[in-house]
């Protein structure tokens, strides 16, 4: 039995188990039948195992170049290096959906075993939803349109090899799985939310049970997006990391609603408010992940990522419509039981800031959605061809982003219910002074773009609020427990990880904002055609073309420009190239990037003398602070881990009436 047969059989068996599990879990939830629950659990566990077997057999078939399988023949070649063969699992549509299904099966198994043990009825109903979604994906993946194991009657001598862009950088091993994990894990909070609506629970048990899941999927989505930006920067060869491409938009939309949710959820926990709203946000986040998949996999929008198009579009659209109709219907049906227990506090209270922040996040998401869909709608309605690209999104999203930075500094500094004048002065004097210093520093270093100056001011403002919070927390612990400063610092994370981990996330976002503002406002370009030995000067760097040579590798042919970089204390070599894969019509640029903490020198081989290699056109960008973007993404990830780690014991201070008062005054 070949790997292909094994994988195909495993998927079909898993489909049967998912159908069985849906029924068994539904019966278990309805009749509270323990034996049916055990049966559903077994179905979930074995089903997960089977989908993993299918994914592993596909990886095996790719690694062993088994061209009897159509997917392998289309996305692999004998020359493809082993790493890129294995990660070929997510190099095209069918394999991506297999990976997606495997993650979903894992999440289903988690709910079946861990979830139902914690809150039996709620989780068993959620399990029905998980099984139903898993059934859909297994149906999808066993239809001819998306079946990864379709066979070829006659195996070709060699395959086409993966898309050139997808075998050019090791980040391909990281970016898609992270993003898919983030996407798929949003289904767990969604399933619990739906379950809570089905059962008519007015409370927030669903939300407490899935808080960590929501945080983890949000973090994976965020880190996956930054990894994607990094990949795009390192591979696409234009010196940017974000182009408002439809697939990028599809990834950022659920991240925006998920971020809004992570904050408004605190309002529900503390104040028992915004119940309907939180359910709506969880539903929207999940629906946006499916919408993104539909948009980018059905070929309705063009994108660098639409490397495959297929007939699964209508199926995904049907799935999306079903989810929306069901969720919105349930939400309306149960809205009577979801009355809030009170009113939001004063405009200067933490919950009010969270609410305003939610409004800005929703506006940001709707703008991305509209901008992505508008060219489609315009063409369908009037036949007009128009473009909506970077300049449009920048004009709308940058002001919204600045508003969010501001609220990020204000929100955590305000108490619940409302703030007194004394509190405002105590919380904001130092941060305001820092904001002014940040703006002055920006102007002094020659920044002229207003948005960039504001970003520096707000970054300093937010950073100051975070430092102030840590300083007060440490001071309080030292006074109360006589701890050393470092021990107190570590204990803040250990005892109140969610709060202080959240501050670390905010610092990561500050780094990201600084990187974006600086790289957008202060990138310098130059372009020159050089003969070997000639030089080009840019922003204090001198670049010398020392040689132009052609390189042959089994899977590709390249022309490489050897550049010597001097100036600004650097003495390095960069090797931008144009790479020709047999499977692609035109050469793919492979930039040479000299990364630094102050700036990156980004070099592109734009053109060269094809006859005698006697000249090369080199395009160069000096991009300041861009590496802070990747660093910021990592800091966000670390902060999320701190926030997700369980505290040693639930904090006692929570039940104290004054727990929400700011740290004690001196």
């Amino acid at each position, binding site marked *: 039995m070949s790997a292909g047969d094994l994988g195909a059989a495993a998927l079909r068996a898993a489909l049967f188990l998912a159908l069985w599990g849906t029924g068994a879990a539904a019966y278990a939830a309805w009749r509270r039948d323990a034996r049916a629950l055990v049966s559903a659990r077994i179905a979930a566990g074995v089903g997960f195992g089977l989908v993993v077997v299918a994914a592993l057999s596909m990886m095996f078939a790719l690694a062993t170049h088994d061209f009897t399988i159509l997917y392998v023949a289309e996305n692999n070649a004998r020359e493809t290096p082993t790493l890129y063969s294995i990660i070929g699992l997510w190099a095209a549509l069918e394999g991506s959906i297999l990976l997606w299904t495997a993650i979903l099966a894992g999440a289903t198994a988690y709910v079946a075993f861990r979830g139902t043990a914690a809150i039996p009825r709620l989780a068993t109903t959620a399990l029905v939803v998980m099984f139903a979604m898993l059934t859909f994906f297994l149906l999808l993946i066993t239809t001819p349109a998306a079946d990864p194991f379709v066979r070829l009657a006659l195996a070709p001598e060699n395959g086409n090899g993966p898309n050139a862009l997808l075998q050019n950088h090791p980040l391909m091993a990281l970016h898609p799985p992270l993003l898919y994990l983030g996407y798929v894990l949003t289904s767990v909070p969604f399933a619990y939310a739906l379950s809570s609506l089905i059962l008519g629970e007015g409370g927030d048990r669903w939300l407490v049970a899935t808080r960590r899941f929501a945080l983890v999927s949000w973090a994976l989505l965020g880190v996956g997006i930054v990894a994607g930006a990094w990949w795009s920067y390192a591979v696409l060869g234009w010196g940017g990391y974000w182009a408002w491409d439809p697939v990028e938009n599809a990834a950022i939309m659920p991240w925006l609603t998920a971020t809004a949710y992570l904050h408004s959820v605190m309002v529900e926990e503390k104040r028992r408010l915004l119940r309907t709203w939180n359910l709506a946000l969880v539903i929207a986040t999940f629906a946006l992940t499916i919408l993104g998949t539909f948009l980018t996999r059905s070929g309705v929008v063009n994108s660098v990522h639409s490397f495959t198009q297929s007939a699964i579009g209508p199926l995904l659209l049907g799935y999306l419509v079903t989810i929306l109709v069901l969720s919105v219907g349930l939400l309306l049906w149960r809205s009577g039981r979801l009355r809030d227990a009170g009113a939001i506090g004063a405009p200067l209270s933490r919950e009010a800031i969270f609410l305003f922040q939610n*409004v800005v996040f929703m506006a940001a998401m709707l703008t991305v959605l509209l901008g992505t869909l508008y060219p489609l709608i315009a063409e369908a309605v009037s036949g007009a061809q128009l473009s909506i690209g970077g300049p449009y999104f920048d004009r709308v999203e940058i002001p919204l982003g600045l508003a969010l930075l501001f609220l990020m500094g204000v929100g955590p500094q305000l108490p619940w219910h409302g703030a007194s004048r004394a509190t405002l002065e105590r919380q904001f004097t130092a941060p305001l002074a820092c904001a002014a210093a940040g703006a002055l520093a920006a102007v002094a270093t020659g920044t002229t773009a207003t948005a960039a100056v504001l970003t520096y001011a707000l970054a300093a403002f937010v950073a100051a609020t975070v430092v102030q919070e840590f300083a007060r927390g440490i001071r309080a612990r030292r006074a109360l427990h006589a701890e050393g400063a470092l021990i107190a610092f570590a204990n803040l994370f250990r005892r109140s990880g969610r709060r202080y981990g959240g501050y670390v996330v905010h610092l990561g976002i500050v780094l990201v904002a600084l990187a974006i503002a600086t790289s957008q406002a202060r990138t310098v370009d130059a372009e020159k055609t050089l003969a070997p030995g000639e030089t080009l000067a840019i922003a204090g760097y001198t670049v010398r073309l020392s040689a132009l040579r052609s390189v042959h590798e089994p899977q590709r042919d390249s022309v490489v420009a050897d550049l010597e970089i001097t100036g600004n204390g650097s003495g390095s070599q960069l090797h931008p190239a144009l790479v020709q894969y047999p499977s692609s019509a035109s050469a793919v640029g492979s930039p040479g990037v000299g990364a630094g903490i102050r700036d990156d020198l980004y070099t592109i081989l734009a053109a060269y003398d094809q006859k005698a290699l006697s000249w090369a056109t080199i395009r160069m960008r000096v991009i300041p602070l861009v590496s802070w973007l990747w660093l910021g993404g990592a800091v966000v990830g670390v902060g999320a881990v701190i926030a997700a780690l369980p505290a040693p014991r639930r904090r006692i201070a929570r039940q104290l009436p004054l727990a929400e008062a700011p740290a004690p005054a001196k």
Partner: protein
Amino acid sequence: MKTRIVIAAAFLALAAALVLAARPHEPTADERVDRITAELRCPVCQGLSVKDSPSETARQMRDLVAERVREGKSDAEIEAEFRAAYGDWVLLSPPIASWSGLVWLAPLAAIAAGLLLATARVRGGAPINVAEPSAAQVAALRERVAREEAAEG
């Protein structure tokens, strides 16, 4: 009083910085080329601007824009020339003065509606005066936290 002075000085400095940054200055020819080409879509790319794209076509378009700038054409004239050649499609940011103005109106409408809804839910009026905890309350709280954390081990 000292706090108030610091706050007032900070706001003044912020305003000064913003005014300094926004002071008008005559753009150089290169800045104009960058500004114009950033708005034009590279016809052979996936949504990249002429400014960003490393493609040959984009390079030629950049050269053309630079030439027009040297000839003394205004930004609007150059943009009109490209619109005549490629249609509105070539603009990455759709013109406001057409029915694609809707795409500009919608985000504004969304944020206005959202803020209205949110403000309606926020309790109106001046910020309430939440009493600061008294020294005795703080001491009692500290003592209680210390006691319970000691009990916790």
